[in-house]
Every structure is written in structure tokens, then in C-alpha cells.
């Protein structure tokens, strides 16, 4: 099995003379780690812009560490540095090029960098500088169609870890048999599913009949340090769907029991999800191209005895959280956060993760700033203009500064919808944009 542990590491002075060293390492590493020519060049362009920007705002006596890691279906390039004046504002998708001053031109590079990759993450390491991660995924051909034979016929099956061809067929059968359900986008690309599992980031279990016909399967991955998300269980052509779906969930559970996982979350529940294993967390709705609203219930299963947790909240949402935690029977110490006029960063930063096939975007706060409200509004405006139908905001209630966004979210027309227990440093709270706010 391929594993995501191939790394290329470079430590280089923040000096323009080394630009070509940095870019050639990233370009060659990206290609060697499996990216196609076009994606490798995009990642290289992004890395070049970041490096050039860091050279401008940092000193030539400083160094940056660049690490390219192969994740089989993606390549991640991390920059670790200690530059004080790194302005992350350009990583807002709403940022626009400004040509009127020197600072505007400098940020232009960051703008290009952020648009040239699929995802980015920014981590401020207390007292140890910053890590900026650029992630570029491989491009895969769509999987095509497999006709769904709906006659129930398989009565006996055994579970196993699938090989590549079984995963390919599994992806096609999921689409064929579960076409009426909201499916994760990766099932459109069976090659990607194979690489996701080959990378070790995702795990899968499938059921085979004695004749080796595929009867169903399940996929799962770690969402963070303590939460696992599963997709499915998907069941095809079996006489006893509840038994198989239960066996698939138990296969997943037995793998993650006795690991650091605290909970198992299901956002894309199939119709075969054995409800007795799960607790409903709440419901999101997805609006289709035809304007139809599809309700998606998120489910949760805790793997350990809940030890209790502190969560932060803005006073305007305290009642909501108290009621939700009482409904979910989750013991939480709810602590208030208020703005007392303390000095903030000038600029806030929000990351935007798109699922284009579902016209969906999820915002995540990377930094709170004095312009948080305006920045949020600008994002909503942009999504509205681009016709994005489903806008979510994901907040970590374990990180006090993130809850500063709450009043602006409510004012902008977001509603709190689902608590994902232990999914971040604390619980995550998902908001959905319902209507144009004030």
C-alpha cells in the first residue's frame, strides 16, 4: 500500500537569489510525488509567490523551511517561517488585487498563491512562527456510470479490506444504487477514491458474496485528531440490508475503538445507516439546482464516556447552546466571550472550501480582525453574486476568538444548525446561511 510519508525538505535563506532553488524543489517534488504537469506548475507558482513575498517582508538572515509531502491524491507544501509582518489578508477569497500602492502589489503575489491551490491552512505556532500549508490535488477523470441491478439477491457475505479494482467498482455502485442521496463528491472520481485509501488517510471495508459480487461497503477517515467521519454504509443487492449495514458500521467501529478517536460523525448518511448506533445531531439543508431543498441529518456516535468539556460562546447564542447541549445530553461548561474593546488584528481571514458539484462552500475562520463583520459580508456578497446556493460556516467552540464571529453571522443571515462534538479543539458548530441579512 502507498503511504503518505514521502517528504522532500528544504531549508533556504529568505533571499531572492534562492527563488529558483525553492521553486525547482517544489516543482520537481510535486511531479515526483504524483501531481500532473499542470497541477505541479500551479503549486510551483503558488510557492514562488509565497517565497517572494516572504523575502520582501522578512530578512535575508532568516530562513524558511519548505516541506513537500506526498499524500498520493494530493501534494502538500508547508512553509515554516518566523516573519512577523506576514499579512494573511490576501488569503480571503474576496481579496482583490490593488495596484495603487506597494503593499497592494506585494499582496498580489499572495492572492495568486491562494488561488493556485485547492486548499490552504495557516497555523500560528505560539512563539515558534507560522506554518502555511498549500495543498494541490491530483486531477482525476470522472468514473462514468454503472447500472444498478436492484434485485436483492446476495444473502451471504464476508467483510474485507478492498483492493483497487473493488474500490473502483464500489464507487460506481454507490453512485448507481444511492443516486437519490447526497453523496460526497469523491465518488465521482473512482481513481481518487483508490488513491485516498492507498494514502492511508481513508480506510474502507467492503462486503463480498461467496461469488465475489460486491454487496456493499463503507469508507472512513480522521477529520482531526479526535474525530472520525464515515461515509455510508452503502448496501447493494442484499436480502438483509440492515444486517450488512450494521456489520459495516461495526467493522469501522472495531477499527477505531482503542484509538484516540472520541467520536464518529456521519454527515453523508446513507438510507441504510443503522440509526440505533447513532444520535441525530441536527439538520442542514442543501438546495439543488432546481431549487429543491434536501435535508441532511448529521449523526454522531461517541466512542468514549464523555469527560465533559468547556466551550466558548458569545452571549447572543448562550440560550441556543444550553438547549442543544441539554437535548444532546452533553455535559458542557459554557463560558462567555465578549468584546471589551481590546486591540485586534486589523484584518480577519476566512478560508473557503468549495464543493462545486453541490454549489456549496464552507467558511472557516483563520483569524479574527477589526474588519470581521465587513469581511464576512463581503464573502456572502461574493457567493451570492456567484450563485453559490449552499453557504456554511464552521466554528470551533474550543477556540475563544472564533466565537467573536457569532453576532456577525447572525446579523448576516446565518443560523446555528449542528454541533459536532469534539470535532475540533472543542465542539464544532456549523452555521448555515439562510437568507440575506441586514
Amino acid at each position: 500500500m502507498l503511504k503518505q510519508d514521502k517528504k522532500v525538505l528544504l531549508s533556504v535563506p529568505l533571499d531572492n537569489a534562492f527563488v529558483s532553488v525553492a521553486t525547482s524543489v517544489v516543482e520537481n517534488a510535486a511531479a515526483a510525488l504524483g501531481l500532473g504537469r499542470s497541477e505541479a506548475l500551479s503549486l510551483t507558482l503558488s510557492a514562488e509567490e509565497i517565497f517572494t513575498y516572504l523575502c520582501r517582508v522578512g530578512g535575508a538572515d532568516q530562513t524558511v523551511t519548505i516541506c513537500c509531502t506526498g499524500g498520493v491524491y494530493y501534494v502538500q507544501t508547508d512553509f515554516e517561517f518566523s516573519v512577523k509582518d506576514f499579512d494573511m489578508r490576501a488569503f480571503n477569497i474576496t481579496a482583490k488585487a490593488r495596484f495603487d500602492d506597494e503593499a497592494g502589489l506585494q499582496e498580489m503575489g499572495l492572492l495568486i498563491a491562494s488561488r493556485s491551490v485547492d486548499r490552504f491552512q495557516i497555523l500560528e505556532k505560539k512563539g515558534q512562527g507560522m506554518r502555511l500549508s498549500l495543498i494541490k490535488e491530483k486531477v482525476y477523470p470522472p468514473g462514468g456510470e454503472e447500472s444498478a441491478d436492484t434485485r436483492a439477491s446476495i444473502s451471504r457475505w464476508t467483510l474485507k479490506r478492498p483492493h483497487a479494482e473493488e474500490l473502483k467498482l464500489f464507487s460506481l455502485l454507490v453512485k448507481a444504487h444511492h443516486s437519490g442521496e447526497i453523496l460526497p463528491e469523491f465518488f465521482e472520481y473512482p481513481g481518487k477514491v483508490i488513491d485516498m485509501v492507498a494514502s492511508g488517510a481513508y480506510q474502507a471495508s467492503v462486503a463480498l458474496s461467496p461469488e465475489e459480487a460486491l454487496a456493499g461497503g463503507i469508507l472512513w477517515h480522521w477529520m482531526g485528531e479526535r474525530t472520525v467521519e464515515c461515509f455510508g454504509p452503502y448496501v447493494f443487492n442484499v436480502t438483509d440490508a440492515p444486517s450488512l449495514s450494521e456489520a459495516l458500521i461495526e467493522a469501522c467501529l472495531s477499527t477505531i475503538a482503542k484509538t484516540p478517536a472520541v467520536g464518529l460523525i456521519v454527515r453523508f448518511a446513507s438510507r441504510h445507516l443503522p440509526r440505533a448506533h447513532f444520535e441525530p445531531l441536527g439538520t442542514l439543508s442543501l438546495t439543488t439546482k432546481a431549487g429543491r431543498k434536501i435535508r441532511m441529518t448529521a449523526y454522531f456516535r461517541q466512542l468514549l464516556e464523555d469527560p465533559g468539556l468547556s466551550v466558548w460562546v458569545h452571549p447572543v447564542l448562550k440560550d441556543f447552546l444550553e438547549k442543544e447541549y441539554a437535548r444532546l445530553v452533553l455535559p458542557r461548561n459554557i463560558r462567555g466571550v465578549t468584546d471589551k474593546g481590546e486591540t485586534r488584528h486589523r484584518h480577519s481571514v476566512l478560508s473557503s472550501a468549495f464543493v462545486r458539484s453541490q454549489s456549496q462552500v464552507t467558511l472557516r475562520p483563520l483569524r479574527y480582525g477589526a474588519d470581521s463583520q465587513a469581511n464576512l459580508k463581503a464573502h456572502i456578497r461574493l457567493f451570492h453574486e456567484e450563485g453559490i446556493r449552499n453557504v456554511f460556516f464552521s466554528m470551533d467552540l474550543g477556540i475563544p476568538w472564533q466565537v467573536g464571529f457569532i453576532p456577525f453571522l447572525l446579523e448576516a443571515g446565518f443560523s446555528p444548525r449542528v454541533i459536532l462534538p469534539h470535532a475540533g479543539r472543542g465542539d464544532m458548530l456549523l452555521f448555515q446561511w439562510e437568507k440575506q441579512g441586514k
Partner: protein
Amino acid sequence: MNPVPLDKLVPPHVRGFEAYIPSKPDEVLKKLYGCSRLFRLNNNENALGPPPAARSVIDRFPSSRASVYPSGDAYPLRCKLADKFGLDPDQILVGNGANEVITFAIKAFCREGDNIITADKTFAVYEWVAEFSGYQARLVPLADFGFDDEGMLERIDERTKILFICNPNNPTGGFWDEKKIRGFLERIGGRQIVIIDEAYAEFMEAKDYPDGISLIGTYPNVVVFRTFSKMYGLAGLRIGYLVGDLEVVNIIRRTCVVYSVNVLAQEAARAALDDGEHVLRTREMIRQGKDFLIRELNLLGLSYIHGGGNFMMIHLPMSDSLAYRKLMTRGIMVRTMTGFRFPNYIRVTVSKMEAMEAFIEALEGILREGNT
């Protein structure tokens, strides 16, 4: 000050190991879950507490003795145990709970590249100690809720050092009878150490339940673990022991931390051994509690697993961790079983009737509410 370079200092097997977080103290839990009383039915403690003779030792313990080291190797207690079982005192090692003697045994026999074999759904400490010490734990699925002898034998290779059998098994209560255990030991042929964990031996009334200690004479590769935490109600004092062949125990002694068992635990344990009535009273309480639970669970239409020991496993039509939280709000603390790889099962300690009635009442309540 530079940050500690933990990535370089910490060995991979420790980095990849998840620390066990014990439950919070009762007072904290009661506040968290908003309950005014708490029945602890999660740790298989003895609700009758220690035997009266041990209580008396604890009550009369002079505080001045706290400044004096205890017997470093629990010599008086080992002599008493030796008298009771007809052994040489040096065939016994006493530890700070049975968990510590598990560590002694694994350290004594394993080195890098070695493995231990046990079941996948059993007391987790054998697996944990092996893994955080850098040895492989080979886990064999249970067969019909008991240890699978054939499966364990199949997994042995030249690097297998110890096979752990929990008899009766925690949490299923299944046990091997004497014939089965002798057959297993014959096939091992003395090539590996076989540890029989008899933490719940004193609860066993089945005629075919084997006494592991009596097997040591015939099979010198057998080591037996026992504890004062369960039947003898001394869990808070942390004291357990192992028994084995003299030569084997002399090897384990080399990895044994001396002075780890405090004087109060040693003296209370010594007193506890004299009280045969306590064992009978506890067994009676367990019988009564189990009868009640079985009757009520049948009425509720719930399936359950029980055998030896002061506990039962109950299969719920809901997530065990949700059941745990809901039961906690009603002042009942049980053990969830997903971590033991038994999803949707809870393990409940069989206790006094007041607690059993409160448990059933709470269970009925949460079943009515369902998964929401």
C-alpha cells in the same frame, strides 16, 4: 528556553499510544451531569466494601506509621498468602494493583520484536502495557464470548513470550474449565509463559472453574494474577499479586518495583484473607442482584451476557455512550463497551439491590426516550 524536542526524544511506540484518561472524580461528574447521587456501577467494585477485619485495620491505622516505609516486598502478606495456598512465600510477588504485576511480567520476558497474545475483547491492560513498552499485542477474536484456544495457538511464533488468559473474562464472564485449560497448557508445552488473570476468581462458584494456582506444580510456565480490588473491596488501596513457579517468579522479581505497595494496603489485605464470611455475603449479594437484573432485563426485552464475576453485559438498542450520558444524568455510572469492541453494550457491576433498582428504573427511562 527552547521547546523540548519531543519528536526526537519520544520513541514511536509511545508517540503512537493514546493515554488512558480515567473518569473524573464523583463530585466533578455529579456537577457536570447535574445529579445529586451517583451509583458507581462501572468498575466492578464490591458494594459491600472491605471485609470487617480489613475495615478494622483501616479504621485503627495510626497516622504516625505513615512516616515509616512499608515492607518493601510485602513480606508478611506473602507469608500469609503462602500459608493459605501451600506455597513458598518467594513464589508470590505483590504489586500496586494487578496492573503493576502485569507490567512486571511483561518487562521480565519481552524484548524488542517480541509479542504477547491475548483476546481482542478482554481486559485492555495486557494490550496497553505491551504496546506502550514497544512489544506487539496480537489480539485473537473471542469465540462464543470466551477466549479462543485454537486461535491463540495459531498466532504463536518464535517471538511469542506470553499468552494472557482472563479467566473469567472481563467483560463477558466466559471462562475456561479445567479440562480446557489443561489441554491448552499441554499444547503450549512449556514453551511460553501462560498468564491466567484470576481477578474475579473469588466470585466463581461453578464447580468446573479451575484454580490456576493448583496448576503451577504441573505447569511451571503458568503465572496466576489475583487482586484485592474486587472481592476484597480494597480497590482504593491498590494491591494485587502474582503467583508462579519459584524460578519463574525469581526472574519476574528482577523487574519488580519494591516499596510500591503501601503499608495500609498490605495490612488490610492480610486481614481480609481471614474473612471467609465476606466472600459468602458478597456472592449472595451478586446472586440476588443478577437474579433481579435477569428478570428485569427479560421484561424489558434486552439481551445480556453473563457468566463469572460481579458484572453483566447488556445489549442496548442505542449507542452505549449515549446511554452512559443519559444514565449519568440519572445518577447511574456504567461502563461503555465500544472501547472493548462491543458496540452498543454496557457493562454493569452487580451491586446492592438499591443500586440495581435505581439502575433498572433509569434504564427503563432512557429506553423510553430512545436515541433522541
